[in-house]
């Protein structure tokens, strides 16, 4: 009887002390948030953190509707999305939890090692079609892209293409792994992938955003000190009135321990 009472007491106390929070959104940040949530729950047995994916857009619209506490996003919140949150009378809070660098990759046999942003724009918008135009062999360029639904697609378009459209016949692959596979087996291929996906099957090119003055190879170090240009922040969004509830978890993610997990997953720490 005593034992039963004891168990009931534990149950009641854990129910009242429970800090349930939901995180929803980007599939890019999904593995990171999952790992962080796991570690956080191990350290704080009373807390529950539920992490689901679905895409950055899905997460932000859930935040607007109030069905999630934190929206994880691989792109910056859009103007009209911010607008909707303000219309509902909430103030939006933004936290950068990590950074992700995009590497431009080509086939390992490709002799081209340096490309400027302007050349990349030409290649992905279809104005440059042969490798010899950018100092390579006489070979047709085959650009690979992600599907239009991906946050990576949007970020690349914004950063490298300066909001211009991709060429209409671009090869679009359903996953980053498929891009690595295809670029690795196609001589004239070029594609973009997250830094964590770099392998010996593909070669990363050095990129210049200052019209060819300096070329930088993608690496965690270069992305961290700001010399590698194609870096995107990964965000957590929440509304100010939930701050008390979500703060402990976000503080944990931003702590030294949490940021160590960021590096382990293959992203760049935000500190």
């Amino acid at each position: 009887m005593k034992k039963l009472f004891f168990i009931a007491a534990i149950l009641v106390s854990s129910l009242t002390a429970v800090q349930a929070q939901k995180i929803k959104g980007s599939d890019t940040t999904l593995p990171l948030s999952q790992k962080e949530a796991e570690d956080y729950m191990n350290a704080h047995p009373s807390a529950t953190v539920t992490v689901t994916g679905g895409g950055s857009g899905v997460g932000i619209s859930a935040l607007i509707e109030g069905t999630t506490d934190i929206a994880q996003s691989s792109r910056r919140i859009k103007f009209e999305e911010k607008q909707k949150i303000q219309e509902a009378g909430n103030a939006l809070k933004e936290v950068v939890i990590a950074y992700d660098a995009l590497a431009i990759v080509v086939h390992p046999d490709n002799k081209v090692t340096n490309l400027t942003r302007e050349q990349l724009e030409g290649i992905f918008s279809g104005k440059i079609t042969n490798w010899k135009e950018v100092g390579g062999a006489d070979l047709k360029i085959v650009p690979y892209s992600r599907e239009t639904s991906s946050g990576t697609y949007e970020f690349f378009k914004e950063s490298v293409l300066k909001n211009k459209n991709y060429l209409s016949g671009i090869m679009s692959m359903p996953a980053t792994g498929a891009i690595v596979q295809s670029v690795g087996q196609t001589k004239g291929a070029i594609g973009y992938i997250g830094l964590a996906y770099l392998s010996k099957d593909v070669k990363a090119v050095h990129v210049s955003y200052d019209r060819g003055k300096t070329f930088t190879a993608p690496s965690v170090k270069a992305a961290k000190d700001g010399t590698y240009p194609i870096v995107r922040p990964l965000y957590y969004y929440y509304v100010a009135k939930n701050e008390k509830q979500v703060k402990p978890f976000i503080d944990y993610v931003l702590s030294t321990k949490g940021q160590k997990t960021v590096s382990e997953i293959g992203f760049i720490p935000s500190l």
Partner: protein
Amino acid sequence: MKRIIEKVIESLLTISGATTGIVILLIVVFLFREGVGFFSHSDIESGYVLCVNGKNPVDRLTPEQIKRIFDYEIDNWSLAGGNDEAIEPFRMNDLSDYYSDEELGENYEFVPEKLGEIIGGTPGIIAFIPEQYVPGKSEEVKVLSGNKLKPADFFGGENWMPTATPAPQFGLLPLLTGTLWVGLCAILIALPLGLGVAIYLGELANEKIRNLLKPTIELLAGIPSVVYGFFGLVVLVPFIQKAFNLPVGETAFAGSLVLAIMALPTIITVAEDAIRNTPQTMREASLGLGANHWQTIYRVVIPYSISGISAAVVLGIGRAIGETMAVLMVTGNAAVIPRSLFEPVRTIPATIAAELGEAPHGGAHYSALFVLGCILFLITVIISISAELISKKQHQAQ
């Protein structure tokens, strides 16, 4: 008691038949209801408008022109029916280059006013801005009237760029031709092969081989399509690329090959069943009249089982045209009208699968994908009706 049970079972069977019919009907109605809304959407992204300087004579732009303006391909208003003036595209994000957040107000209450200043002060501007920030009535700002999406642009369009801003491009042609092209080639590869195997299994193979071969082929049908896709991407694609010395291996041909392999079990099983259903007496009569084995197959067995064989063809084509995952992985998904077998293509099912998850619910992109679904449905309906007619004609001729 027995009678009651029988009655209950009978009514249960009737109900299950009726439910199946109703569910199928509902799915079709749902598909068309979602799709039909497409042509009432505006050709500019919803919630946004395009504004130009009040002195600009241009009133109307086609989606194609809008896209090329914002891609900096059309850079002078004279190319779009206006004055000789350089075009300056302006997006909402550019606003922060002109004004600080404080100047725009905490809740963006000064945005319309500031936009009015920018648009009024730049003669060549074309601004892509949210509807609620359109500056109040003034001489200096003109809102370009958006058009409804036109069926002609959809059915005759050669560009599929559903997320292009400000004007998404919904062109059916590359997707439709891609689908038909891949499906047709797949069936051209699978049909002779499948029929050959079916005839061999049904007429020539001895019992031992048959008992071994038939389950193996049926096993092929049980392999998940994504596994075929993976096999295609890792084995077929590099092979095709090397064998034909192509710049890319992800081509319509790779898709056709994978689809042909996938359609084979369906074609073989259905056709072989039809062939074996030919009554033994007919075979014996034919042989008794002095026809040899081959003549019996050719003149008696095949004509007798032709309706089953055409059913096999239809099911095979249906499988090939509707297959999604494997094609998504091996065809490269480039939305261009195919000019040869060795170019990347994008098919309708692959497009729906890849895009529906992220398309805003109820928007133009979402409806467009449903229209694609309707078209796919119509294609399969046409194929099965024509196969039905063919087999009927054959039977009448006999």
